């Protein structure tokens, strides 16, 4: 009869602010999914189960499980606390309903009341706590009214029946804890699983009993022999030899044990480091990606700083000439003044010439007018084409033409007509300053473009920062809680290879030296036993003693073998099931088909390896993959059991490291193994989506194995004090 949780509800429990009715999740047989982004109440939901089963919650700050009594102030909704007046009280609780079989339905309520004593909301001294009595109610399914259960033993039993304590570790999956459910390097760990699944314990008891009987039978036999054959020295020698061999064997066994211990320590270290090792590699890969990005960011930041520093240079740089902005009128005025100056200057010069040579009026003519070619023609033709009159050689007109033609030569000997000739001063200013006043039109544009350029660089920097942050987040998520983030990759890798080396060394010692020696001693022992037996034959002792010893020897050997067969049988069954689940889990991934292999060590522990298609062990794979392997074994332990597994799976984000292909496989696999699964998951969340779930989420929504699906919401950008989780039921 499977236990099925029908609903769970919260009252002022963490962010689940409000009454039970506001925070109720109706659940069904099959798969139930609660999708929630980080901070949207996933772990809090899971904490409710911890409270119900263990009176504990997981402190998200310290990652430690703490008693509900000590957690007190932390687990009450801040909003509820804030709304409680001093002297008033607030109630916080969790309620769960479940059915077991077809007859009864149960309700379990755990709660406490907190009275506010002081102003400071989050200070635990401001509150007085009273744990309320555990409420357990029962009803027959055909009825509607619950009746309270009063007997404390019965209350406990009802909670235990939901998930039996021995099985809780298979039913409770929280994040990385999957890794710790089974520690393959420990003999007890897999034995415990096998014990849970088989009657191997009784085989062991039988074997122990028979071994004891056998030893006793030999001692009896020996007594008889000694009594009956005092002078048989050969027999005594044989017995002495036998004892010697037994001692040697014992000694070898002790050595074997020591080396097994060494092996198991090294193996444990290797297994512990497996995850870190793969993480170290992955982290190194991310670090390699981060390095050039960080450099690029530094360069960009520097470029940005320089850019900002140089903005004001643009006022004075002829390429930008911002300082010229607004000086249009001044430049026009300068030109106007310059024209006037040139004009006046010319007049001044002309007047001066008139003063000096009152008869040479041509000084009034502009330079090069008439041009030298025309003048030459006029002289040759002895005719002035300007006034169209004759200018015969010898006449004043003719000599005037000659003078005009020679005027440039005269000019060289011309005397300065001003004290300070500043014509070039003004002219040069106007020519040189062009880069500035030519920019008038474009300055405003240039300023706008500069601002745009700034935005562009800033955007680039933001983009880079986002990229780095995203990789950084990935990098941080690789680190396992409890491990120092500064645990250097190199250290991990060196410890890992060290452990592997020690394992190899111990294995060589055991397999090449100790085991052969043990075997040889065993062989010798058997030979000497036979020798003793045949010596017996010649002696006159009652048959019963001999037969008794022989029969018990055989039985002891047989029971030893039977025990081993049961164990081996269960291991190969587990292997078979684990591979089945593993294949399902990875079927949406492009992982090429390897297999999970269980190998028994001489010391009884199980080597658990992933072999690739060529039969080589694959070490140090990614964390998600490691977890997938172990999760396959957890499911195998459940599914290899002859009877059906009767308890729900309660899982908080066990798939965060899996990747999408694994995630899909996970949901398919759990449906086959667990009668009911309640999975809290972030990976299906998509903020931008209208329904807030991603494509995989939508596919799962349509899957008929998925019976209910909720999405949790939190008010965005709200203060902790206003934080409220609400939920939408999608299915």
């Amino acid at each position, binding site marked *: 009869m499977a236990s099925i949780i029908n609903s769970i509800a919260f009252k002022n429990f963490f962010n689940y602010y409000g009454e039970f009715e506001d925070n109720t999740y109706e659940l069904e047989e099959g798969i139930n999914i609660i999708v929630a982004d980080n901070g949207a109440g996933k772990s809090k939901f899971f904490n409710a189960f911890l409270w119900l089963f263990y009176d504990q919650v997981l402190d998200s700050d310290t990652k430690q499980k703490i008693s509900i009594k000590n957690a007190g102030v932390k687990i009450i909704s801040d909003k509820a606390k804030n709304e409680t007046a001093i002297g008033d009280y607030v109630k916080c609780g969790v309620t769960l309903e479940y059915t077991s079989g077809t007859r009864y339905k149960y309700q379990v309520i755990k709660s406490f009341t907190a009275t506010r004593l002081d102003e400071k909301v989050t200070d635990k001294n401001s509150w007085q706590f009273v744990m309320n009595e555990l409420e357990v109610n029962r009803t027959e399914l055909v009825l509607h009214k619950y009746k309270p259960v009063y007997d404390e033993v019965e209350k406990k039993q009802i909670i235990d029946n939901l998930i039996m304590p021995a099985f809780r570790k298979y039913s409770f999956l929280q994040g990385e804890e999957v890794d710790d459910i089974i520690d393959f390097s420990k003999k007890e760990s897999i034995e415990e699983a096998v014990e849970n699944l088989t009657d191997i314990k009784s085989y062991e008891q039988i074997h122990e009993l028979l071994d004891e009987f056998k030893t006793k039978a030999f001692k009896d036999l020996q007594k008889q022999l000694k009594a009956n054959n005092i002078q048989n020295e050969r027999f005594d020698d044989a017995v002495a030899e036998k004892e010697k061999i037994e001692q040697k064997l014992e000694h070898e066994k002790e050595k074997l044990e020591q080396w097994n211990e060494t092996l198991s320590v090294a193996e444990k270290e290797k297994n512990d480091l497996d995850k870190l090792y793969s993480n170290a590699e992955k982290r190194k890969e991310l670090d390699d990606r981060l390095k050039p990005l960080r450099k690029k960011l530094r360069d960009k930041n520097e470029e940005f700083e320089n850019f900002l520093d140089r*903005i004001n240079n643009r006022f004075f740089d002829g390429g930008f000439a911002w300082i010229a902005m607004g000086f249009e009128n001044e430049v026009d005025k300068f030109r106007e003044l310059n024209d006037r100056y040139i004009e006046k200057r010319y007049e001044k010069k002309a007047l001066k010439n008139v003063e000096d040579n009152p008869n040479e009026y041509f000084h009034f003519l502009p330079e090069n007018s008439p041009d030298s070619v025309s003048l030459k023609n006029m002289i040759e033709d002895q005719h002035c084409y300007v006034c169209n009159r004759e200018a015969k050689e010898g006449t004043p007109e003719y000599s005037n033409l000659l003078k005009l033609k020679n005027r440039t030569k005269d000019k060289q000997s011309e005397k300065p007509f001003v004290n300070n000739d500043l014509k070039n001063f003004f002219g040069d200013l106007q020519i040189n300053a062009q880069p500035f006043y030519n920019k008038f039109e474009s300055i405003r544009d240039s300023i706008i473009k500069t601002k745009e350029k700034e935005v562009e660089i800033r955007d680039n920097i933001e983009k880079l920062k986002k990229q780095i942050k995203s990789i950084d987040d990935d990098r941080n998520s690789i680190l396992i809680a409890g491990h120092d983030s500064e645990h250097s990759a190199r250290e991990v890798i060196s410890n890992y290879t060290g452990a592997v080396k020690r394992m190899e060394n111990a294995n060589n010692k055991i397999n090449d030296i100790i085991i052969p020696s043990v075997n040889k001693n065993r062989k010798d022992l058997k030979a000497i036993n036979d020798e003793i037996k045949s010596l017996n034959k010649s002696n006159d002792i009652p048959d019963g003693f001999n037969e008794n010893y022989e029969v018990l020897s055989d039985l002891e050997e047989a029971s030893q073998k039977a025990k081993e067969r049961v164990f081996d049988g269960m291991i190969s069954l587990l292997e078979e099931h684990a591979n089945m689940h593993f294949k399902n889990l990875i079927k949406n991934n492009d992982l090429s088909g390897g297999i999970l292999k269980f190998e028994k060590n001489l010391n009884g522990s199980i080597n658990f390896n992933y072999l690739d298609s060529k039969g080589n062990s694959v070490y140090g794979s990614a964390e998600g993959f490691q977890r997938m392997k172990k999760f396959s074994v957890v499911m195998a332990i459940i599914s290899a059991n002859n009877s059906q597994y009767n308890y729900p799976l309660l899982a908080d984000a066990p798939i965060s490291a899996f990747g999408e292909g694994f995630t899909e496989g996970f949901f398919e696999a759990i449906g086959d193994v667990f009668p009911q699964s309640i999975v809290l998951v972030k990976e299906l969340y998509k903020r931008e989506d209208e329904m807030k779930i991603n494509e995989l989420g939508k596919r799962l929504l349509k899957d008929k194995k998925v019976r209910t699906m909720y999405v949790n919401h939190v008010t965005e950008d709200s203060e902790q004090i206003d934080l409220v989780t609400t939920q939408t039921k999608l299915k």
Partner: protein
Amino acid sequence: MTAQEFKNTILLKRPRYAKSKIPVIEAFANKGQSKSEYSQFGPIYELYIYAFRLGLKKGLKLPLPPRNSTQDFIEIGKWKRDSSLVDFLLMIIFSYSEEIGFDWNDLEDFDDKELNQVVSNIIEFIESYANGGLQYLQEEWGNDNLINSSYLFADLMNE
């Protein structure tokens, strides 16, 4: 005086600023030193030219105090060397010849003493408006009216 000699006379001058403006100069011209929270110019002459433009455009003419309350800095000829910045500045200044009180053509007839007087007047013209501009910046700064942005000075020109 030739054109070049006349120009050199101007370029050799070292305009002065009032000592009361030292804080504002230190705040807005870093002279390649440490940075302040505000957008800054590099050498003093940059801020000085900017202040001159500001004073001129806003009509803020403020004569310098007596000489020992003032301080000089590098000569105009060394402002942004290998650039036509100073030529452009002189172009602007000579367009104000009426306000400064001379006629371009008259300059050509002056003797050296008279010319030197005109150059002095020109420098005084620069100094008074630069002083007016610095005064304006100092007041705005003191009254917290300056927006701390990289475009502080570009935006201020548009006002």
